[in-house]
């Protein structure tokens, strides 16, 4: 399969890699433009107009002269109602294989019942998606990004399995999200150019302004937007890539090779191009997060639908946001994370010469578990088998490294410190060669509970697979020296960030005890190993290299010049600690228990 080679400064027409599906057709794309001031026409509008006109002419020519496979008459839709079905997924996070999980009450309310053997899995998702597309006329499958990172299959194969299985699922387009870069920009290019049968979209990334070599690569595998023609209905899809979680992206000379285009400008620009090409509807597939999606639906009149992700929320019934300028009611849909749900949005569109108007919508969320999907898709299972065999031989994922005597939780029951958080921070701080006074790690670096389905009185064998699912990131331990004032600033930031997330602590600590005041967004009553914090003192910190580099907004760590990346994998540190301790938790010795070291105050 070749790469997507197209002239610089122009967008590909019917770009690149051979598609696994003949549908959709009629790919038309304009130039990937540089940034222009808000408002239209921009200086490049003439170029775009010519490009759009050329593309339209090309399409017209094709319709007349190019042989098609069993071509049938495309209906004239003006004045008619037509139905469009969008299957959507998001934040799969490498959960290609079913996994153990304890559904929350919220999950239960969305149809994900307790008691299933296991949950998620791409073959079950594919079975549902293919079934639903067979029960629909005009349909698209859009994915809102972050299919990478979250299970060992990503650590080992760097996204190849994700891209191949999504392609075989029949995915039409996905947006670039933050975790797609977890193994590097070149890796994203390599995986997509080698294995993708779907379009990768990002309208708010400009690759042209960068001198980084991989910027060219990223440009080749992505499009800002694309027009899909579905039996006469022309659906323009715009990709809105993530900004907030890519801390390096907003640096002046960032290493991502990406210049950010303001989302509103990107949307309006692409919508203009798509409309010029005859789009009836404008759909955004977004990884910007729910708040941004709502804001865009409210403020940008060109949008008709938003298919969102990033915040891992499944919303059913979906939101409907009224656009302030046009009064249009814009459905905003999110289908959660970790392969737990597939969403189906149906809209009825009244088509006119000026475009389409959504008259009504309907929504269904399909839970994915052994209880709800009896048979996975065999094509996907065949693909996965190749990877599972290698994983089994390489890692022996079912090897037992410890025993949980109760569920080990990643969140604290009161929003403060947690069992796994305390255990991880203690392990980092006390690991031979690290041995610092304090440790801080971000809560969201721990991705799942261990022993989620453990019943009272039972024990759970902790396997290597459990550890990878809980700690999928290949982060390392970084040490640095902080002044007492910097410790105060660090914990103030933790309090502020946590206050915006339901007062659930966004960091886990060791050697530190403090009151997290979410009301005033301040850390109070800070004790370091039992002694009140000395603002003029110096403390050695162990943390992970992700937040050490400023990830998740920890900029006070990023600027520290005493950083030393030990290169020691945090997952290895925790694995060693589990093996040493073997039975977890150990309340008598305060191991892997909540001890109130972070006291939230609302």
């Amino acid at each position, binding site marked *: 399969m070749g790469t997507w080679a197209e*002239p610089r400064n122009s967008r590909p*027409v019917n770009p690149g890699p051979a598609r696994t599906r003949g549908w959709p057709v009629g790919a*038309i794309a304009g130039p990937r433009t540089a940034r222009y001031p808000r408002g239209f026409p921009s200086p490049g509008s003439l170029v775009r107009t010519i*490009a759009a006109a*050329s593309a339209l*002419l*090309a*399409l017209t020519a*094709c319709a007349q*002269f*190019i*042989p*098609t*496979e*069993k*071509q049938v*008459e*495309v209906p*004239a839709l003006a004045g*008619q*109602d*037509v*139905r469009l079905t969008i299957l959507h997924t998001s934040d799969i996070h490498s959960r290609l294989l079913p996994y153990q999980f304890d559904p*929350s*009450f*919220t*999950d239960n*309310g969305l149809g994900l019942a307790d008691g299933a053997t296991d949950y998620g899995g791409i073959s079950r998702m594919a079975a549902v998606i293919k079934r639903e597309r067979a*029960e629909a006329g005009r349909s698209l499958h859009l994915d809102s990004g972050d299919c990478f990172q979250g299970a060992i299959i990503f650590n080992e194969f760097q996204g190849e399995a994700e891209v191949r299985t999504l392609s075989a699922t029949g995915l039409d387009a996905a947006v670039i999200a933050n*975790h797609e870069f977890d193994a590097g920009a070149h890796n994203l290019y390599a995986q997509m150019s080698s294995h993708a049968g779907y379009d990768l979209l990002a309208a708010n990334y400009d690759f042209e302004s960068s001198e980084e070599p991989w910027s060219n690569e990223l440009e080749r595998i992505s499009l800002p937007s694309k027009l899909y023609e579905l*039996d006469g209905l022309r659906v323009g899809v715009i990709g809105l890539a993530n900004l*907030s*979680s890519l801390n390096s992206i907003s640096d002046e000379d960032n290493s991502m090779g990406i210049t950010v285009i303001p989302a509103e400008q990107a949307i309006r620009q692409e919508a203009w191009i798509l409309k010029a090409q005859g789009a009836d509807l404008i759909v955004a597939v977004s990884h910007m*997060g729910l708040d941004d999606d*709502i804001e865009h639906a409210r403020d940008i009149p060109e949008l008709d639908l938003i298919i969102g992700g*990033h*915040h*891992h929320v499944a919303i*059913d*019934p979906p*939101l*409907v946001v009224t656009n302030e300028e046009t009064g249009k009611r814009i459905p905003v849909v999110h289908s959660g*994370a970790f392969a737990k749900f597939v969403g189906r949005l149906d809209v*009825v569109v009244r088509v006119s010469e000026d475009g389409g108007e959504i*008259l*009504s*919508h*309907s929504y269904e969320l399909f839970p994915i578990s052994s209880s709800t999907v009896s048979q996975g898709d065999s094509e996907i299972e065949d693909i996965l088998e190749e990877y599972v065999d290698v994983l089994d031989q390489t890692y022996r994922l079912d090897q037992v490294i410890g025993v949980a005597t109760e569920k080990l939780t990643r*969140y604290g*029951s*009161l929003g403060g410190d947690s069992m796994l958080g305390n255990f991880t921070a203690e392990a980092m701080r006390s690991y031979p060669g690290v041995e610092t006074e304090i440790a801080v790690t971000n809560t*969201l670096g721990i991705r799942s509970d261990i022993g989620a389905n453990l019943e009272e009185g039972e024990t759970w064998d902790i396997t290597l697979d459990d550890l990878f699912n809980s700690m999928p*990131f290949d982060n390392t331990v970084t040490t640095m020296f902080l002044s007492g004032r910097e410790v105060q600033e660090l914990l103030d930031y933790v309090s502020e960030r946590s206050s*915006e*997330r*339901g007062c*659930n602590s966004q960091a886990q600590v060791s050697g530190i005890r403090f009151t997290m005041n*979410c009301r005033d967004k301040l850390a109070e009553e800070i004790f370091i190993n039992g002694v009140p914090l000395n603002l003029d003192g110096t403390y050695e910190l162990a943390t992970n290299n992700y937040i050490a580099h400023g990830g998740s907004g920890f900029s006070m760590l990023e600027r520290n010049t005493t950083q030393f990346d030990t290169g020691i994998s945090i997952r290895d540190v925790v694995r060693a600690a589990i093996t040493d301790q073997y039975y977890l938790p150990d309340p008598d010795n305060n191991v892997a228990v909540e001890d109130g070291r972070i006291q939230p*105050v*609302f």
Partner: protein
Amino acid sequence: MLLTLLACAPQKIATERVEPTFVYVTVLTEDLGSAESPLAFTTDVVPLRVRVETLDVDGDPYPFTGDLSVKVRPGILEQEKWISLSEGVFEGDIELRNGFGPTRLWFSDEGDKDSSTGRQPSFATGVTDPPLYYALPTLAEMNEIEDVESNQLAGEFAEIRALDRDVRVSAVGVNGYWITDMADEPGSYNNLFVYTFSKPSDETLVGSRVTLLTGSNQEYLGSTQLSFPTYVIGDDELVTPPEPVLISASNCADLASLEGLESAIVRIEDVTVPAGFSGTDEDYLDYVDYGQWPIGDCFYVDNNVTIPDFVPTAGLEIPYVQGILNQVFDKWILLPRDPDDLSVAAGGPPASSGPRMPDPPGEFPHSHAPGEPCLP
């Protein structure tokens, strides 16, 4: 030129056309309401007379004989979900209820009711246009229903009628707020919890007026709430929230009647913590796990977040307790808003602590999934 060449790759347009291609719907009922003058929201069954015709790919009448599926969005269909067309036409009444805002009927070719006919559907769909236009429901209209664990807009994206009402914030919590429609009588289903995940916006104060409210309508542990809300706080002057509604601690015979007070501020007087509240008593074990403790015969109090230092003991006399009435499955639990909401008889433990705000209904501390928001 390159563009043209690339665009001219062979294309698969479709393999076979299944008729009908279009469904065309005419509304024969005259009074449909409008955005300016909507019909009153109603839970009564309403007939809507329609003519449904099928068209072929050229937009000409297509003599389809078979079934179309019917649904109403938003609202509830009060009849069988199939209609039968003969020679491409159906004319008759469709019964529905609980529509709100612009409400449309969908007619879709999804195969026949009897799937054994094997007819391949075309998925052609048409909707009623213009729509029926209903007023948005008030809080009371949305909440009042016989099924205590549901509401009239269950499963819908809800929009609450607020602009011409007097909807006020009655209490503010750490991850949401409660509202009361002051235009209705106390206890008339006129209260609701709005779940915001984090602390509500700074202008969301007790007594402030809500002029716009939409959200995903969900039942959480038995209580109705709006999640992921969009709301606007008006610049009206703050008002004093309604006085707590006095209820009897022995009102156990018909707990369902309390539904009208769900999420309202209520008060119970002169009660005692049961003498058996200790050891292996089921209520005591629940208290240890979740934090709620019994008063009277059938009510509970959860002071876990707002008065965390208060520990109830068997036989303790409580001159009064007040707070938000919250349903958690089959239990009714009062959530005191602050230490002033709990009075303890002389000699009992102090009912005071730092000013912490209450958790939302159904939330034994953080039982709402803390969520997995922004990733690292």
